[in-house]
């Protein structure tokens, strides 16, 4: 699974620390999600989508071999 989290963050000019504070997670968590090293739970994915005011599918998407 990949994501556009970094892109969404860049669009709004938000740092990883700001996003982490807003969602009450650690900065390392945001970093590892962006790097694709950690798959967030459904709750966190929904919270991220809500924060950016987009759908979950707009941030997270499956790779071709995962479909």
């Amino acid at each position, binding site marked *: 699974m990949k994501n556009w989290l970094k892109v969404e963050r860049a669009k709004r000019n938000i740092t990883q620390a700001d996003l982490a504070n807003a969602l*009450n997670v*650690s900065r390392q968590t945001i970093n590892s999600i962006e790097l694709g090293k950690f798959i967030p739970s459904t709750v966190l994915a929904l919270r991220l989508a809500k924060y950016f005011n987009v759908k979950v599918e707009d941030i997270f998407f499956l790779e071709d071999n995962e479909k």
Partner: protein
Amino acid sequence: MTIKLAYMTSMLYICRNLKQHYMKGPNLFALNEHSIRRTGLIFAGIFIVLEIIAKVTGSIQHMHVSLVNIYTMLALFMAAFSKDKVDDERSQAIRYFSLKVTFKCLLAAISINYIYKFNFESIYIANSSLIVYLIIYHLANYYNPVFIFKEGTRKKNWSDKLLVIIMLLIGTSFFIHIVQAMLTS
């Protein structure tokens, strides 16, 4: 008497955590607050230094060394099972990973100690496993390893096959040995 009291204190502390675990819900342990970690680490450091001094100089009696060992364990327990500054789902994944690795290391240490008759004191094994847990947890937190669950994509690698072959060989040799012993008797 003092050692028994120290044991009781440490066991009471651990039992308090277990009690909270059952009361709060599906947690492995009721984790301490983040500030407890620093306290635990400081005390563990002090007790470890005390023990090294005791071992090197031989100035402290055996009873006191045992007491220091128990309190080291307690301090390490406090440090190991306390929350992160921001304790989120990634921290829990890392904690689970660290516990798995530590458990395997602990089993290996106990097995080696038993097989080769090293006669290491069990308190040292307990303390070292807690230290291993702390090191793995902090390394994993810092180096950000992969925590991705991929369903059905894992292939059996050569190490799995090798382990199965070794276990089969050991099992077969045990079986042959038992049969031979039965036949000769």
